[in-house]
């Protein structure tokens, strides 16, 4: 669009008001949190080695988890939106389940599957001697497990909104379904994809319960920033708030700079 968007009149007052209320409701606690932060000690808390280490771990594991969501969730969302396989309704509902499991239980479930004595974990350990829990791999798995449903569901919604007829057009031009997926479906679903990635990344960044249960909590390898926040919370609530602010600021910075550039969303 080169032109300004069509001028369809002022936005309806009730929508503006309701939207403002929603925004205020979301922002108010954040403001309160910022106000309540221990500003005098902030820098020392935030610049501690352990905090920096945890932040860095959080950032890269979340990013990898978002990448895994993209790799695995994109095909799944596409299958759910486009292919009428038997049992699709059930699979779609089951995909939602990790959303409702309390994160700690999600961690328990992951342990039952990938733990030392788990369904996959035990054979894995006996065959190769590898162990997933207590490693950074486990952090990434926990993040992915928790974030994937968000990604899949929001992307599926977006895929359903893209016009099927354009895929027919691509097919008549000789594009296989794979080419069509890559060159037509994906670009058309880009806003939904971006939204899904943001959801997945942010959910990973804040993930706590599944991570500590499945991956454990050890500085440097598995203690992400939320775990660091929790650790601090046991002793010093102010420090926990300060560390949370770091998460908050990093998230806003990343989203304001990266997302808008990458996805051209104004």
């Amino acid at each position, binding site marked *: 669009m080169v032109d300004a968007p069509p001028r369809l009149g002022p936005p309806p007052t009730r929508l503006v008001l309701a939207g403002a209320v929603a925004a205020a409701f979301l922002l108010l606690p954040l403001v309160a949190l910022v106000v309540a932060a221990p500003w005098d000690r902030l820098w020392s808390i935030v610049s501690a080695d352990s905090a920096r280490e945890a932040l860095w771990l959080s950032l890269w594991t979340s990013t990898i988890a978002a990448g895994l969501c993209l790799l695995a969730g994109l095909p799944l969302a596409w299958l759910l939106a486009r292919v009428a396989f038997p049992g699709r309704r059930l699979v779609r509902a089951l995909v939602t389940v990790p959303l409702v499991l309390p994160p700690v239980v999600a961690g328990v479930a992951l342990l039952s599957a990938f733990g030392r004595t788990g369904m996959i974990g035990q054979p894995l350990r006996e065959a190769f001697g590898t162990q997933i829990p207590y490693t950074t791999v486990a952090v990434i798995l926990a993040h992915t497990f928790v974030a994937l449903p968000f990604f899949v569901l929001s992307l599926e919604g977006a895929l359903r909104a893209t016009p099927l007829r354009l895929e*027919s057009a691509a*097919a*008549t031009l*000789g594009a296989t379904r794979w080419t069509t997926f890559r*060159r037509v479906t994906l670009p058309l679903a880009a806003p939904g994809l971006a939204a899904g990635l943001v959801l997945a990344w942010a959910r990973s960044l804040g993930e706590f319960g599944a991570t500590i249960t499945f991956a454990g909590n050890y500085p440097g390898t598995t203690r992400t920033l939320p775990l660091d926040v929790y650790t601090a919370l046991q002793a010093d609530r102010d420090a926990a708030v300060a560390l949370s602010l770091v998460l908050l600021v990093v998230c806003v910075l990343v989203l304001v700079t990266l997302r808008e550039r990458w996805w051209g969303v104004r």
Partner: protein
Amino acid sequence: MGRPVSRGLAVTVDLPRLRAEVRVRPGSTVAVVGPNGAGKTTLVEAAAGTAPGRTSYDGEDWSGLPPYRRSVGMVFQEHLLFPHLDARDNVAFGLQARGVRRHGARRTAERWLSRIGLPDVARQRPAALSGGQAQRVALARALATQPRVLLLDEPFAALDVAAGAQLRLLLAAHLRDFEGVTLLVTHDAIDARALADEVVVLEHGTVAQVGTPAEIAEAPATAHAARLLGLNVLAAEEVVVPGHAPPGTLVTFAPSAVTLTVDEPAGSARNRWQGVVHTAVERDGIVRVHLRGAHDLYADVTPAAVDDLGLEPGRAAWASVKATEVTVLADGPT
């Protein structure tokens, strides 16, 4: 492999809304005409594989094949340009999908854009194209892959006269040494006559008539075919015809066969109706006069005659037609 193979394209559709079979001989063009909702789009989409139907080409059975395994090029009635690609990449899409590298595909696409008279819109996205520009880009996109089966669903609908003429010439030139087959959906008699070797008339979801353009012009089987060729259509009871016309059938005669007079005509013309001039529209030096009375009648007369007779809207006049000019249509009123 034992079973009879037919060369060219054969499409069979068996849906509630269309039951039809159409064959196109190698190297030839078939125009598909018919009223809105007759099933023309359904037919060509079946050939493309985007709608259900059975298709074979040169003896190969394409029925089970997805569109991308068929060598088709299609212009959709709604264009269906890819909104996220600029005009050049839209045209290059088919080439790239068939394995041409991006750079080469884009060069070819640029040549096609020049050929359709739009070298300047290469970098514009469909949202910034005018309706006619989009239509032309869609045509270029379909032709660029050099498919063996060309499926064109009203490709000239939104074009201005000059662009229409240019693209008709382009298409005619393309079709002249084209060894594949073409299905052309059109509402324009000129297209049907100038580009097609054969015309298929679809009506109410069935094939009403098949023949060369001249055959159908001479003996249209339905009112639509007659109207498409610009003929007057009346009920047989109301017209004197040579030979026998069963009641309930329709008859037709060309506007050029109609003579207009201000006074009741005296000559040998046996069909005569009085009416009032509704419109008088000149086109290419011929004035088509629409006379309203008991029937809607069209007469083609010279501008001089219009001046002499003072055929302005509102003026009463007589129309007459010789019985020998009247053809009996095969079907009943629609």
